[in-house]
């Protein structure tokens, strides 16, 4: 069974079909795209029942020679680390496509690029060969560039260029690092699993150099301070569904890369980098939430909250413990669902009011109760209210980091307070207080918006109440990964 290939390339098939459809048959294009994403999603969920939760290793492996003369192979597989992210990707793509049904301008190209983006993201989480990984990694870049640059806001070109150049700059260093490990392994190989066993022959100096190469690429993607400034810009300019994908999946590629490649292949350098990583994590958390507090644009605020939330992931990783790693992965899932939904919600209000200025609203809770309820639920989930998904990830990250970094973690807890402050302030200004007469005719959410947001809201509750469903998937892998870590 080539299930993983099917999951990955059915969107590509969809993209090609979309390409051959006449551009004025909008309905057919939308149906094709959603059908392709749905099949991919259903297949990835089906794996849930076949996924062996007790095995730490790779499952559903596919291996075929690609360029044998250079030892490059087509090598796919998922384990407890990547499988949850795979499902997250297929889910968020589907949700994003449903959220994109309102796109009116150049529909055909939009859905084509969107599906192509999906292929790239799925591949990144499945690839077990560095060249394949790199190809998929870069594949995400181009569609994103066009999606922001064509369908974006007023400063879309600037944002798209900045995003593109910034991430490309990181990728270049990653390519260097990939070549470095290739030429320093015997026999020369790009196989990630083989390289994970090869690192014992590498000196610390070499590992650090390679690590920095990879880290630059991943840190820009995460985004880790000080490489985060493309994110608010890209989020503000990108169309709603693209923001969703950007926050929910693209950022996760960075954290996934750190866990899979930086930690797996370069443990010595990883240890060397830990003291810096924890500082970066704390800066991300505290500084990100403070920046979010200063925002007047709802979307930009949510974007900065992503910086803050990815800081939790980094903190969990910096804890270098089983708890911290599982917290980081859980936080990725939780953040993907919650922030994705938040971006959709901000898009809903923007579609109606054509503004995202927090001060422009007031008292909306009385006018749009369903919308208000979703916004409250997801803001609380994002600020880490227990019983919702955000809390579990955040708490596990803190718990995992605390044993190693007591003071840093305690400082980071203040970031939680700041997060609560800016979300509540936004809620108060937008939804509470006297109704701003300007919005007296504001309609509540439509069925399409409900279909895209309600499942995410439900998931954030379900995972928050019963985190075992996600944690069970990754426990074996993460325990195996950290088996030899000294506390």
């Amino acid at each position, binding site marked *: 069974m080539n299930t993983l290939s099917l999951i990955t390339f059915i969107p590509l098939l969809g993209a090609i079909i979309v390409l051959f459809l006449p551009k004025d048959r909008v309905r057919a294009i939308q149906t094709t795209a959603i059908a392709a994403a749905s099949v991919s999603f259903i297949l990835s969920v089906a794996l849930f029942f076949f996924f062996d939760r007790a095995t730490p290793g790779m499952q559903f492996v596919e291996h075929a020679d690609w360029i044998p003369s250079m030892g490059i192979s087509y090598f796919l597989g998922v384990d407890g680390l990547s499988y949850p992210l795979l499902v997250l990707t297929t889910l968020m793509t589907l949700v994003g496509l449903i959220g994109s049904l309102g796109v009116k301008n150049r529909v055909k190209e939009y859905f084509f690029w969107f599906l192509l983006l999906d292929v790239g993201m799925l591949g990144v989480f499945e690839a077990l060969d560095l060249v394949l990984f790199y190809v998929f990694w870069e594949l995400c870049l181009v569609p994103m560039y066009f999606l922001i640059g064509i369908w974006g806001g007023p400063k879309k070109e600037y944002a798209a260029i*900045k995003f593109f150049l910034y991430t490309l700059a990181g990728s270049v260093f990653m390519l260097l690092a990939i070549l470095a490990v290739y030429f320093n392994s015997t026999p020369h190989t790009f196989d990630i699993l083989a390289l994970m066993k090869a690192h014992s022959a590498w000196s610390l100096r070499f590992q650090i150099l390679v690590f920095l190469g990879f880290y630059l690429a991943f840190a820009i993607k995460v985004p880790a301070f000080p490489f985060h*400034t493309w994110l608010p810009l890209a989020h503000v300019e990108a169309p709603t569904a693209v923001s969703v994908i950007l926050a929910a999946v693209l950022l996760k590629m960075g954290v996934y890369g750190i866990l899979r490649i930086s930690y797996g292949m370069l443990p010595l350098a990883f240890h060397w980098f830990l003291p810096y990583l924890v500082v970066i994590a704390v800066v991300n958390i505290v500084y990100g939430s403070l920046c*979010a507090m200063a925002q007047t644009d709802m979307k930009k605020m949510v974007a900065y909250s992503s910086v803050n939330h990815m800081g939790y992931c980094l903190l969990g990783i910096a804890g270098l413990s*089983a708890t911290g790693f599982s917290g980081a992965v859980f936080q990725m899932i939780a953040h993907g669902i919650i922030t994705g939904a938040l971006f959709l919600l901000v898009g809903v209000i923007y579609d109606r009011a054509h503004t995202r200025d927090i001060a422009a609203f007031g008292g909306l809770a009385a006018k749009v109760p369903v919308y208000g309820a979703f916004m409250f639920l997801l803001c609380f989930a994002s600020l880490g209210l227990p019983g919702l998904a955000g809390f579990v990830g955040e708490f596990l990250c*803190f718990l995992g980091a605390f044993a190693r970094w007591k003071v840093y973690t305690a400082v980071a807890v203040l970031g939680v307070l*700041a997060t609560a402050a*800016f979300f509540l302030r936004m809620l108060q200004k937008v939804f*509470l*207080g006297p109704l701003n007469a300007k919005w007296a005719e504001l309609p509540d959410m439509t069925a399409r918006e409900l279909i895209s947001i309600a499942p995410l809201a439900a998931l954030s509750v379900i995972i928050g109440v019963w985190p075992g469903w996600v944690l069970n998937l990754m426990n074996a892998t993460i325990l195996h990964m950290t*088996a030899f870590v000294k506390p």
Partner: protein
Amino acid sequence: MLEHVYLIALIPLAASLVILFGFKENPRSRAPYLGIAAMLWCFLQSCAVFHRVAASALPLSYEANMEWFRLPVQIAGKAFALPLQLGVLIDGPAALMLCVVTLVSLMVQIYSLGYMHGDPRLRRYYAFLSFFTASMLGLVVSSDLLVTFMCWELVGVSSYLLIGFWFEKPGPAYASKKAFITTKLGDCGLYVALLLLFTKTGTFQISALRESVAHGYLAGAAATAVALGMLLGCIGKSAQWPLFIWLPDAMEGPTPVSALIHAATMVAAGIYLVARTYFIYLASPVALETAAWIGLITAFLAATMAIVAYDIKRVLAFSTISQLGFMMCALGAGGYAAGLFHLTTHAFFKSLLFLGAGSVIHAVHTNDMRRMGGLSKKMPITFVTMVLATLAIAGVPPFAGYFSKELILKAVYQHSPAMFFLLAAAALLTAFYMTRLIMLTFLGAPREEELHQHAHESPASMTGPMMLLASLAVVSGMALAHAGFIERLLPLSAAAPAEELAAREFPEWLGAGVSVLGALSIVLGFLLYRGPAFETAKALKRRFSGLFELLENRYGFDAFFLRLVEAADALSRFCFWFDSQVVDRVFVDGWGLLTLIWAEAAQLVDSRLIDRTVDGFGLLSLDLGGGLRALVRDGQVQEYLMYVAIVVSLFAALLLMR
């Protein structure tokens, strides 16, 4: 029956979900009856549980757990998936608390039928109330500190939703946020404490923690840090000094909500948590002492602030803060049973006071006591129940407050006589400001005729719960203190510093003296606030205007926290400026600019140096050609031929000369 005790928390949760999703928003919705029925069932169950626990000779501690999720951990060098438990732990305090919470919630829900009558969002109100009760009950019964913390936060969020229930008004919207953020500030301490606790012991299970502490795995500085962190959380939740600022503002919520959340249950959660983890505090004398002092300071400061407030609900809010200070102080001083006892009696009479205040507000539509007066004839039931509650809170024997306060004072005296005197002063202030409240509201002549004219007694749905609570305010102290029952119900764990408790004998005359002074302060309040215009009090106020202002400004704590918020805002603006101007402009765009400059330089070299050189060769040959052409410009073939001949012969000459 104990096997299904978890249902006590889950039934209200289910009720809340059913109300929220199963009913339509409608002022005449049937939803309240579902909430009330669920709560009645819970109350009966709680009574049964209480009976079981009280009937058994020993402090029964029933625990039942189920696996919640497995968490990968490394403990003592071993990596494994640790199961986290979801479970219940029922002991004396929990059983007592269950009864208190379910009873007060039941009363408040019945009361709200009248108070919230005709509100367009009745369904939401009852859903929130049920949700709040569910999370509060979860907090009470949970056997696991992590779950306790989760319920703790959920309680906070329901409080947020209920304070801001009338969100169209700016006041509640602001107050709800303030309450949430302030308690969250305290929760940061609790959060860190939980992290440290888990790092040291590897469990959140209360029973397992008890073992760990008993074996000395958690002792010394670590125990102190954990205890102080938790204390910070309790300070936030129970509105202790210096985080008490949110509670007076929380009075913007509907009055029954104040009765339930901000008098009897949620604010008591902090006290309850300290009691629940008392074994950790016992391992850390520093933390106990801190708790005692914080409670003491709170009790005293809040009592003084209550004296000058004119908003009837704020007086009660300050009173609540003060009483919570009493409990905290008692716990800190080692009076475990005393603190929890006071928590119970206080829950009854304070919720009654709030319900009474609600009844008054319902009648006159104002919170300002200066506009009331003389309501006793119009609202006899409210008046009588309020007076009973006042007597209870003032500590007049044989009402409930007398027994619990007596116990607290005794415990504190045994701990430290100095603290005792300060606390006794706070107790006297309590009697004073409560008398003032009764005087201003019910006695004397009506100050605003129009309001007075329209005032009426509240409907039976409101007075019924008040009467029931009033009876409890009268008898609960006596009943629970009977033959040392409360001490048997709430036994201190084995690690109690027994020798210290026995060290100092509480002199009988001191207790009697406090009672007499209490009576005197009631009389004083009566004298000062007599008459329609309470001239004596006003004169005093003019005389000591500086002091009054200080009290009305709440000692400047609000201003201080406001300043703190402003500072955080300034910091956030600075951060954003730094981010957009320095990090983005300098760091990122700077790189771009550098690349641009480099590109320009390369372009310059390319166009000026390399390209010019190429052009130069072209030009050179052009010039050379031009020069030669000038030499032979007449086009004569023979001339050309001559040049050829000359050159050839020159070459020939050269060849020949070699």
